[in-house]
């Protein structure tokens, strides 16, 4: 499955090069501060993990990068240039693709239609021009096979695939269409152990092909398997920001479970 990614990964990506840089980024919704003072760098060929409990600001962070809500504090640099995305299209055109946990695909649509959604192969610019359906089906089928997903029928609705496979189709699609940065929003949250494994392997493959990956999760074990850099958010602020070499899985797990608060709690509850 790494073949697919390596084939389609952008040639200009160099490992370690900074793709997205956030400096002191914050976001307020009216009087509510959802995010404050976030510094995050996404490098090519690395996985940056963003961990945090519900309501910690993970989704807001994604939405800023994906172009759903522009930030209103600090600066967001993409390929060294300051940006403020106001639509997903704009973000996509900079090579930033987001795969959402639950809205990755349109379940009633066929697998191949989903694969090419938003980037259909058309025979001409004319709005009513036909799509190259035969090519689309063939490419979608080939790409999925390379990832180890064999669908019974490329015409079946994607809702009939398993959750892990749907995530993989969404990731494969993003990579196939030349994503440079892949934002994965809780890709393993709803999946079983085996299916999570498939998604994690695919994430690692994307990293090795030189893409910058932002991996959002609340599972430190999954994060530690693929991550190069870890940020833990709490109430909109970063409480931990460390490289892989500086942090152990135990510390990550402890921080995620509540960290110092947990220690305090254990004193309080001492029996």
């Amino acid at each position, binding site marked *: 499955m790494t073949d697919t990614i390596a084939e389609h990964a952008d040639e200009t990506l160099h*490992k370690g090069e900074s793709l997205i840089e956030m400096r002191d980024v914050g976001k307020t919704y009216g009087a509510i501060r959802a995010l404050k003072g976030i510094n995050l760098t996404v490098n090519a060929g690395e996985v940056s993990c963003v961990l945090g409990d519900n309501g910690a600001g993970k989704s807001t962070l994604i939405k800023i990068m994906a172009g759903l809500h522009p930030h209103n504090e600090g600066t967001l640099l993409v390929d060294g240039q300051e940006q403020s995305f106001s639509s997903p299209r704009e973000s996509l055109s900079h090579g930033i693709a987001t795969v959402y946990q639950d809205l990755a695909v349109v379940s*009633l649509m066929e697998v191949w239609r989903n694969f090419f*959604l938003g980037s259909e192969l058309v025979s001409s610019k004319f709005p009513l021009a036909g799509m190259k359906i035969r090519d689309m089906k063939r490419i979608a089928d080939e790409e999925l096979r390379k990832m180890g997903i064999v669908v019974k029928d490329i015409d079946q609705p994607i809702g009939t695939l398993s959750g892990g496979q749907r995530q993989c189709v969404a990731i494969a699609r993003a990579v196939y269409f030349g994503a440079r940065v892949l934002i994965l929003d809780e890709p393993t949250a709803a999946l079983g152990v085996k299916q999570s494994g498939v998604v994690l392997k695919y994430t690692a493959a994307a990293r090795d092909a030189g893409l910058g990956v932002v991996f959002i999760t609340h599972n430190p074990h999954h994060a530690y398997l693929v991550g190069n850099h870890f940020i833990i958010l709490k109430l909109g602020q970063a409480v931990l920001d460390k490289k892989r070499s500086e942090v152990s899985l135990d510390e990550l797990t402890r921080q995620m479970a509540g960290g110092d608060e947990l220690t305090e709690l254990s004193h309080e509850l001492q029996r």
Partner: protein
Amino acid sequence: MSQTLKPAPAGAPAEASNRVTLGLSNRLLARPEVGAAVAAIVIFVFFLVVAPAFRSPESFFTVLYQASTIGIVAVGVGMLMIGGEFDLSAGVIVTTAGLFNALFCYYLGINLVVGALLSLVFCLAIGFFNGYMVMRTGIPSFLITLGSFFVLQGANLGITKLVSGAVSSPNINQMAGYDLLSTVFAGSFKIGGVTVWNTVIYWFAFVALSGWILTRTRIGNWIYAVGGNPASARAVGVPVTRVKVGLFMTVSFLGWFVGMHTLYRFNTLQAGNGVGNEFLYIIAAVVGGTLLTGGYGNAIGVAIGAFIFGMTSLGIVYAGWDPNWFRAFLGVMLLLAVMVNLYVKKLSTTRKVG
């Protein structure tokens, strides 16, 4: 980059041993229009048996004509419903289009062709307004178009009465441009002694175009996506607002088209007409397998739905029954269709082989 790759995990075998071709019955059941087609055949045979007058070719083409007057707008309504929205103003906009054309030209003495074009612009503006309001405010289209339905219904009557002093538009058959427009919109021709209204031809053409757009074009892909899962469509770069606004405008365009037909066929319009037709369009779409929640359906199904409407509304008359039963029958059809749809949706989203 390839030197940095880890060994690839084993891919799938080239020839998938678990890939099977689904049986014909399975593939058929997965199509939205199959239920409607079966129902259409049953109803057709039923009326052939009970209504001798139904058997002649003339009555068949009358049925087609009746179906086309509903079917043309239903093409748009079906596409809109696949796109996940409703338009309750689709019934009265037909009358609005005709009244606008007739009143405007009659009282200002303008060529009817000019009036027809202005009426088209006006209808497209209403469609745009509906779509823009729905997308801008996030209020369900049911409510927005319910609002425009009442506004148009009231304005149709109010303005007609204000301008002409009556509740119908003046007769326009002596005005400049009438001949051209009545040939285009309300023409008919004879094939072997049978009258064929050209709306039937237009209807077929619109159905074919809609079928092409939905299944073969990028726009069709987007329509299914914005109906099935707008958030996910937006995330992959589908211009959701433009697609939906375009669909509302398609419905009002087709409403205008039928409005032109009605005006130039009867030369005068009752200002209160069209109320209730919006539900006929929706029924045609739903009976044809379109999901009320969006994302599923097709053009042929909607056409069959309209055909069922045409068959039953005339079949009951041909059979010599009280035509008041027609609506009751339509209600039963709707309930059956909804249940079949639910079953089909379940069937097509259950997991088969991973």
